[in-house]
């Protein structure tokens, strides 16, 4: 009895070794970069993590093929290195000592990549399945490009400034045109409101500005005696 048991175990071991080895058929290499992803919060890769990995792969296979025949024991890991990298195969429990075709495994992993990544707190770059390329996510494009919005704001400010300055200029120009026109009107009417300062009409001072000093032309009486 014991001999039979030992024989089956050794056969299985040999079979497993045959199935899972580097570059075997339907085998995939996995590489994890835990320290790069998590820094100080990095966990150590041990047998428990390996168990979780086998469980995730079995989960992916079950979900993909929707037949609940894949067991955790069907997933074989081998060639564990300190990098953390290893090879794995998925055996078919119905057909003895064969592996599930690589295309099926690849499709299953692709479909559940996000779930597998999250289980290990990693992403596509830090949990690499070397033969399985990840589909790149499309860039998030807002409906109106952001730069167009900013450009609109800038342009509105500029146009507002230009309009303000032009209107200001036109108003100043109109005021300048109105003033001499008003002065002409008053002179025609002859009703000039003569402003008198110190007994001398201001008009006199204006006309003779710079030539004759109207103040000095006045009487000496104007000056307060010392």
């Amino acid at each position, binding site marked *: 009895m014991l001999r039979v048991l030992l024989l089956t175990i050794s056969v299985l071991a040999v079979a497993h070794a045959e199935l899972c080895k580097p570059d075997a058929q339907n085998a995939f290499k996995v590489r994890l970069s835990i320290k790069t992803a998590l820094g100080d919060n990095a966990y150590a890769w041990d047998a428990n993590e390996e168990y979780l990995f086998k469980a995730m792969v079995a989960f992916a296979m079950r979900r993909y093929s929707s037949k609940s025949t894949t067991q955790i024991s069907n997933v074989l890991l081998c060639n564990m290195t300190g990098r953390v990298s290893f090879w794995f195969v998925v055996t078919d429990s119905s057909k003895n000592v064969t592996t599930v075709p690589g295309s099926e495994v690849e499709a299953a992993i692709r479909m559940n990549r996000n779930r597998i990544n999250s289980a290990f707190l990693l992403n596509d770059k830090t949990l690499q399945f070397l033969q399985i390329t990840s589909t790149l996510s499309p860039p998030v494009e807002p409906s109106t490009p952001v730069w167009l919005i900013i450009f609109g704001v800038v342009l509105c400010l500029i146009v507002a400034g*230009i309009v303000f300055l032009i209107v200001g200029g036109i108003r100043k120009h109109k005021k300048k045109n109105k003033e001499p026109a008003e002065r002409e009107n008053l002179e025609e009417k002859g009703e000039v409101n003569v402003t008198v300062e110190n007994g001398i009409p201001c008009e006199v001072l204006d006309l003779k500005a710079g030539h004759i000093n109207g103040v000095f032309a006045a009487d000496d009486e104007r000056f307060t005696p010392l």
Partner: protein
Amino acid sequence: EEDGRPKWDNKFQYILSCVGFAVGLGNVWRFPYLCQIHGGGAFLIPYFIALLFEGIPLLHLELALGQYVRKGSIGAWNTVSPYLGGVGAGTWMASVLVSLYYNTVLTWVMWYFINSFQEPLPWSVCPLNENRTGLNEECYESTAVNYFWYRKTLNITPDVTESGTLQWWLILCLAACWAIVYLCTIRGIETTGKAIYVTALFPYLVLTIFLIHGLSLPGATDGLTYLFTPNLNALKNPRIWLDAATQIFFSLSLAVGGLIAFSSYNPPKNDCEKDAVTVAIVNSLTSLYASIPVFSVLGFKATTGYWDCLDRNILNIINEFDLPEESIMRQNYTAWISFLNSSYPEKIAGVKLKTCDLQEFLDQSVSGTGLAFIIFTQAITLMPGSQAWAILFFTMLFCLGLSSMFGNIEGVFTPLLELQVFKSTPKELLSGIICLISFLIALCFTLASGSYWIDIFDSYAGSLPLLVIAFFEVIGVAYVYKIKRFSKDVKQMTGRKPNLYWQMTWKFISPLLLLIVFVAFVTLQTHKPPSYAAWNPKYEGFPMKEEKVYPPWVVSICVLLAALPCVFIPLGALFHLIK
């Protein structure tokens, strides 16, 4: 003022306008580059010699002339001598040509500015290709910053003869830039005088912020030591003297008539000698001040590039040998490499390792648009809070360029205002017409091949004619108007006769220097057929640029651009002779 001429609100506004005109994009992206390629600190020696014997005398000449005659460039030179009216027309033409292409550079700055409000910055990531299996090929082969500049901004064609189509996003930005220029120059110095307080002072603020931040970045000291370590052997190369002379000349924005226009609005009794020395020294000090943050950031970028190179090599090695993570760090990289080389030579050779050399990264020197839009933008993506740094950087570049544009536009605007035909047009209308016509002509720079044309304008219209004009300016004042008369005019304004230094430089040293620079410049340009570097994704050496030669019709345009302002000088003399 009795003659109704507009004037500056105060002296500070005038000095600030001159400083803003002189301090432009070249102070940030050409001076540090020249320092780097010409032996670091050693470049300062020919630079200050050129400043002393060429820059300051010419600057004083232009400021004194404008202030005394109180007219724009055309009127001023007509007053100096009717035979020299052509010099004024030449400076006016040069002003027009420079304004056209200078504002297009500002268009690019504005485009980057409005793109800086996104997360992530659009020049930091490569877009995906059509079937989303990988990154865009052109972007992947070069870098994301190169792709954004050459493809998303310029949409450049592989050849100057292929014009391509007008790029609508650049047209929008060009319209906005000319609208801003119109807004600021709408009433001449009345409005630019207010705007200059912001556009001339803000760059200093940003440079200081970048200085403080730049010095705190890793690798900043490497960049700075690399920049300033003097290599006195470089002084033996005549190229360094030529570059110093041309840099001083173009940096002070001489011979475009803008300075004459600015000083013509001064009161007659103003010390133009002190002004000239002040403006020149502030301009040079700004160049030096700007090169510190620029080189801190470049040192940071080189260090980051070096670390990335090392990290990529390390990752390849630990993947190949299945070593645990963090077993090889940057510090023990060389030790590990020698160990692995001796133990597993074939396996190491299988891992395609790149040689990482910090000096090589530091040696990558770029000037001009490459520095601002490729190198600096990449460095900004590496800094935390890159949006803020990008916005600050591009606002600073925009202000630097805008204050120089004010001077260029004044050089066009002021002489036109004095012509009889435009005496009655309101200023707002005239400036609007100038800006509109310039915008329409500058549309040709928004073609796909536009950046090649900007290079052509910069090399031929914005360089050679100015040397010729400046030469005739000095000769005209020194020998036609006569130095004695000019010294008397200056004495009338400043209260003291120009001393021996000014007399010597105006009469002999500056004209001689200009002649030598002109001859050297022409020799350098013509001793081999003019060529340009084209961005061609189909070139086998891509992402290196392809060296192409200009076709004959382009060469004739180059010659036309260089000759157009110069031809006014003899034409003006002939015209007066015939009259």
